[in-house]
């Protein structure tokens, strides 16, 4: 997670409040150079702007709205979204606290009070992941998604279990026989039954005839008739 290491609020080139990390003593001087350049280039700081300057391993982000400039220095890892969210936040707080006095204040006039606010917000935006509204929203979406999946699980458990339904339909499919196909087999079966019955009848008839002949011809080999 990126860190914000210096912050200041200014009107034109006049710094009214600032707060910096002790590890970066030159941040203030660089910030003032940037503010001087911006004031000179814009003819006294008339227009609103959002701009970033890179210096060595640090980036200076500047946001000017309604004549009041918010500036901060952050490392590369902070990206742009969080620093500018930070700038918008402190700009809002500053304007809300001091109102129109900001337009006539002398250098460092608000530093005693607002420096502490700057420090707190620098910590907040450097350390708290919820500072990024989009990241927070994405987290909420993930939560919604998980809740929906949980609900789906509960629905499937409360009713019949889905696997059970699929198993039942698979079993039914295995058991289903085509209604029509049986007809031919049945007719074959009955036909064969008739054939066997006929054969048996013929056989019995032959046996009876043979017995009668045996009796009439006085012997099993039918000697008198041959």
């Amino acid at each position, binding site marked *: 997670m990126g860190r914000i290491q210096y912050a200041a609020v200014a009107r034109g080139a006049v710094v009214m409040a600032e707060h910096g990390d002790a590890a970066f003593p030159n941040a203030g001087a660089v910030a003032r150079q940037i503010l001087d350049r911006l004031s000179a280039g814009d003819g006294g700081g008339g227009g609103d702007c959002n701009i970033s300057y890179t210096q060595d391993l640090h980036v200076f982000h500047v946001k000017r709205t309604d004549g009041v400039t918010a500036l901060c220095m952050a490392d590369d890892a902070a990206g742009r979204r969080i620093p500018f969210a930070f700038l918008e936040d402190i700009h809002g707080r500053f304007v809300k606290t001091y109102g129109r006095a900001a337009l006539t204040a002398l250098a460092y006039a608000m530093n005693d009070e607002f420096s502490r606010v700057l420090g707190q917000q620098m910590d907040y935006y450097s350390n708290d992941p919820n500072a990024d509204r989009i990241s927070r929203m994405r987290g909420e*979406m993930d939560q*919604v*998604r998980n809740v*929906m*999946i949980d*609900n*789906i699980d509960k*629905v*499937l458990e409360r*009713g*019949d279990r*889905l*696997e059970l*339904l*699929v198993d*039942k*339909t*698979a079993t*039914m*499919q295995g*058991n*289903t*026989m*085509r*209604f*029509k196909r*049986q*007809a031919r087999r*049945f*007719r074959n079966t*009955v036909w064969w039954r008739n054939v066997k019955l006929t054969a048996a009848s013929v056989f019995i008839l032959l046996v009876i005839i043979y017995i009668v002949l045996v009796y009439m011809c006085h012997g099993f080999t039918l000697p008198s008739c041959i």
Partner: protein
Amino acid sequence: MAQIPNLDNAPLNLAALREQSQKDLLNILKSIRGKKCVVIDPKLAGTLSLILQTSLLKEYGAELRLLSAEPLQTECAKILYLVRSELKFMKLIASQIKNDEPKGLQREFFLYFVPRRTVACEKILEEEKVHQKLTLGEYPLYLVPLDEDVICFELDHSLQECLIEGDTSSVWHVAKAIHKLEFAFGVIPNVRAKGVASTKAAELLNSMQQEDPVNMDDMGTPEINTVILLDREVDLVTPMCSQLTYEGLLDEMLQINNGSVEVDATIMGAQQDGKKVKVPLNSSDKLYKEIRDLNFEVVVQVLRQKATSIQQDYAEVKSTNTQSVSELKDFVKRLHSLPEIARHVHLAQHLQSFTGKPSFHARLDIEQTILEVQNFEICFEYIEEMIHKQEPIENVLRLLVLLSLTNAGLPKKNFDYLRREILHSYGFEHMPLLYNLEKAGLFKRQESRSNWIGITRALQLIVDVNDTANPSDISYIFSGYAPLSIRLVQHAVRSGWRSIEELLKLLPGPHLDLKRGSSAINSSLDVHQGLGLQQSIDRVGHRSLVLVVFIGGVTFAEIAALRFLSSQEGMGYDFLVATTKVVNGNTILRPIITNSKEVMI
């Protein structure tokens, strides 16, 4: 889960008809002020559940009771009897009223006949000396929508009355119901009828039009293009065959009543033994609408596809994390259909416990053999064997009737032999049953050569079914037999009776083909040319509507065949089915069996 069917997609505005029935009933309730007890005959209670919710009656101060032989238990001072015009109900009502007299209860009694009062009923009330205590009225409920495309006249005994008892009063009711439809939707220009009752109904319809004409000047083109009336008697073969559609099997195995079926809770996956649950079955259930008319072979495949598809999607949801919230939402919507799938999987599984038996398949084989008029001896032996095994008599009689119908009766030797065997196996008390079957022409001695082979060839009733999943002919419903009645409808719709004039003479009863009200229609179109054109725009994009009326009952398989026909590309008609009752072979024979036993007592 409402039992009242959803009529939003009906080819006619049936919802308006139903609302009128609701309004009529609520007006009757409003005309009796204060709390009242409504006593309904049990059959009518089922019918009313198709018209309005029971809770709506309670809003009008109605307390519901079923009419029975027991004394009436209620605190209400006003009693409203709502019963069909049947003699036995009059005796029950009279006994209840007499039961109240000694108690000194000061009650008012109202009696509303459904659909109209009859002289015979009033005569009984007079004989029982309760006529003076009753305020009489009529609740003209002639037809009830069962579903988007099915209307019922609720005349349960019309087949029995026409065939055996010679009572044709139900024919008047049928004509009256059609006349009411004409008041709502215009005079039907084409009328085709086949059978004794149907031709009589067609003539009655003409008489009613003359006595109480529908005013065609108020409306333009009639919504119903053709009405085809068929007697059940013309085709008794079809209901005797085992239906193989999902809905037909449900009716055969579990009995569908008023659009729902009642089964044990254990069958539906619940754990409460001995309890029964009622499952509504109509077009409001989208899955049921999709599978109801399929051959049962295919239903199992469809259910499996749906369950498997949801299971696969579920596995995908669990295994990957890339699904977006909207995709999850779509999946949850699909989960809403899971209870429907579960319900029908349970019902289908229960049906399969019947259809999976070898005896069921053997029976199908015999039916097929009988229909193809092959191997009379085999069929005879099979039926004889069933009698000896003492199978349920309904099952025996169905095959027996089928054999008799396709052979124009049995040879005298076989006929006498089987009758004797039935009396030996099932008891002498079935002698009146056999007499009634003979009188109705269902099981008779052979006196002439059978026309069945000629009919099956001319109409192509016996068809080999190669693909039950994507059938090209209505014969998929019986896996090889096309219903004779629906073949007649196909011809009637296409070219009228002319092309099959000779064939119609082979079937029982006269036939009729006429155009009605043509002069009225011509004059109305002349006078109201713009209005006519305006009205005709309403049905632009809609196909012509054919009303098919079955007097004596229709089977779910036949309804499925008509739905199949109207879904075909080349077919230019929508079908609306109207019937006295939805039947199957069991429900046709059971009243005859029951009545025959009552005669013996």
